[in-house]
């Protein structure tokens, strides 16, 4: 008796069909509202008219709500060029209102009511413009980018504030205060570094080490001030350097706000930050005078995590196992680093033993491996 199987298969087929067609929650505003008239495009159809409330729409998902005020049964269509049906609803009997949901990319369309269900129908133009946000994983990717940009924005605002405090302390000659603020301001800088690196010439102006500077060029930025604060212990002549740092950081923040990022850039940024940790922070190369490398280390790790978290909905959908691995490895790396907290901040690089550094290095490498897979999953 195969009967139950057959029914089960049929039921499953129907269920699957509906399941994959549901609007995904969290994909940015479903157009179907429970409240009547909310966001729906009213279409008033009679035997001789077809009044569509809007002739211009934003691309994406739209709901048409067709009311038949005529005496004949009508149908409603939206046609693309060549009468390709983008969406239709049939059997709208007199007095009835029926809804139809359709996804329309930008372009020119025609709406049509067909009173009496015959002929070409009463046509009208429909212009759809703007960015299309189809209810697919693309929307999740777009949302990931948007979410990461919000993170960058919030970090940038604080970066501006802290950099201002830092540079003003430098200009006022308050060495101790400036020393305190230095790693704090850098924390925000290091978190958004993947974005900053997009702007080729600004990044070195802000973050170059002494050995990175070509002969005949002036060394500017954080590390120049760092050397003066910790080695020279004197920042009297550094006013212009401080002002330039402030200007450069402001420019970067402004440019970041307008930057169009791709999801793959997010993924690569997350990986890039970890490489930074491995090459610059664990070695103590970055903050060679102040030894505040762990502040940067922590900031890089958080920046990397923020990018991965922004991509999380997409990764969950495409590779749930990778998400689990990433969560575990991030937790390990944070735990390993967390052992070196000191008050509000971190131990200095010089206070760490070889074994401590090896453990940190191992944790970062273990995390770098799954993170390097993120880009390919995103690019799928």
């Amino acid at each position: 008796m195969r009967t139950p199987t057959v029914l089960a298969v049929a039921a499953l087929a129907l269920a699957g069909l509906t399941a994959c067609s549901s609007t995904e929650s969290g994909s940015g505003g479903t157009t179907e509202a429970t409240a009547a008239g909310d966001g729906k495009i009213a279409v008033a159809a009679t035997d001789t008219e077809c009044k569509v409330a809007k002739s211009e729409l934003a691309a994406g998902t739209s709901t048409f709500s067709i009311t038949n005020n005529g005496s004949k049964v009508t149908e409603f269509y939206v046609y693309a060029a060549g009468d390709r049906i983008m969406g239709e609803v049939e059997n709208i009997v007199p007095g009835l209102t029926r809804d139809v949901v359709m996804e329309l990319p930008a372009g020119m369309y025609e709406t049509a009511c067909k009173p009496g269900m015959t002929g070409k129908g009463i046509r009208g133009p429909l212009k759809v413009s703007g960015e299309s946000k189809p209810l697919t994983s693309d929307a999740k990717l777009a949302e990931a980018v948007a979410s990461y940009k919000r993170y960058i924005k919030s970090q940038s605002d604080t970066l501006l504030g802290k950099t201002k405090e830092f540079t003003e302390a430098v200009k006022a000659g308050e060495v101790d205060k400036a020393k305190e603020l230095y790693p704090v301001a850098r924390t925000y800088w290091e978190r958004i570094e993947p974005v900053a690196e997009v702007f080729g010439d600004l990044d070195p102006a802000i973050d170059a080490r002494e050995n990175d500077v070509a002969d005949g060029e002036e060394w500017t930025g954080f590390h120049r001030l760092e050397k003066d604060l910790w080695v020279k212990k004197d920042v009297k002549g550094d006013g212009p350097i401080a002002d330039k740092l402030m200007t450069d950081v402001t420019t970067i923040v402004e440019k970041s706000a307008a930057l169009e990022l791709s999801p793959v850039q997010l993924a690569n940024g997350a990986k890039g930050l970890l490489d930074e940790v491995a090459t610059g922070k664990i070695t103590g190369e970055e903050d060679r005078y102040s030894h505040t490398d762990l502040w940067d280390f922590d900031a890089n790790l958080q920046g990397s995590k923020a990018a991965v978290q922004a991509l999380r909905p997409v990764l969950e959908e495409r590779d749930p196992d990778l998400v689990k691995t990433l969560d575990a490895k991030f937790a390990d790396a944070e735990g390993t680093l967390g052992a070196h907290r000191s008050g509000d901040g971190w131990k200095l690089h010089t206070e760490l033993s070889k074994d401590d550094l090896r453990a940190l290095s191992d944790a970062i490498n273990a995390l770098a491996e799954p993170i390097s897979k993120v880009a390919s999953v995103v690019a799928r």
Partner: protein
Amino acid sequence: MFASYLIGLREGLEATLVVSILVAFLVKSDRRERLPLVWAGVGVAVALSVGFGALLTFTAAHLGQQQQELFDAVTSLAATVFVTFMVFWMRTAARKMSGELRQKMGEALELGATAVVVVAFLSVAREGLETALLWFAAVQGATSSASPLIGITLGLLTAVALGWGLYRSALRINLTKFFTWTGLLLILVAAGIFKYGVHDLQESGLVPGLNTYAFDISGVLDPSAWYSTLLSGMFNITPQPSVLEAAAWVVYLVPVLILFLRRPSAKAPASPAPKSAQPAS
């Protein structure tokens, strides 16, 4: 009101025609124990249609244009296969029905159990979702005007009544007539369902040529008239078919009719029963 009534009738007929013939056949061939299976198939289809109709009406879920058309197309094509199968299965069974072979009929009908359920299910599920959506829309609009709801409901009830009438009259005629007529009727229905499936494939955009009409007699055959409704409800005869759907209708109908009429059914069982060309199920 009358328009709503006709639509309800049409949607209802698409389902009840096949089901009522199926039930009549089972009753006539003493296979009443199979009846619960028919109702199971119908019940599941109705429940699914109503369930999904409610889901799509009252939640944010919606079927894309292509998905809805594809659902209709796939169920229609499957229904074609099964209804065709049913026709020839009935024919085989009819031959074995002459007295002394009656006990051996179980063998011939063994494939029947699954087929019975599937035919019943597909016949109803095919247009069930659209009907459910329409009905819910009428329910929602009932606050301002109840006539669509009343019309559609009455139409559906009439279809069921017509189905029942068909069943009663089918019971009254003799076996030979029953098989010839219901067989022919079912083949016409299946051809219509097949044509409908092709049309939906075209509407979904998977198959081109939706707007290349084979002919257009919508001037003569007004689609909103009652007789057009009956024609499209029973046989899917529409005034404006595309070339491809018309071709599909002919391509199905001609060979199947020839196969079916090659030997008048219910002849003396002396004639060896050939394995008729049954679509694999």
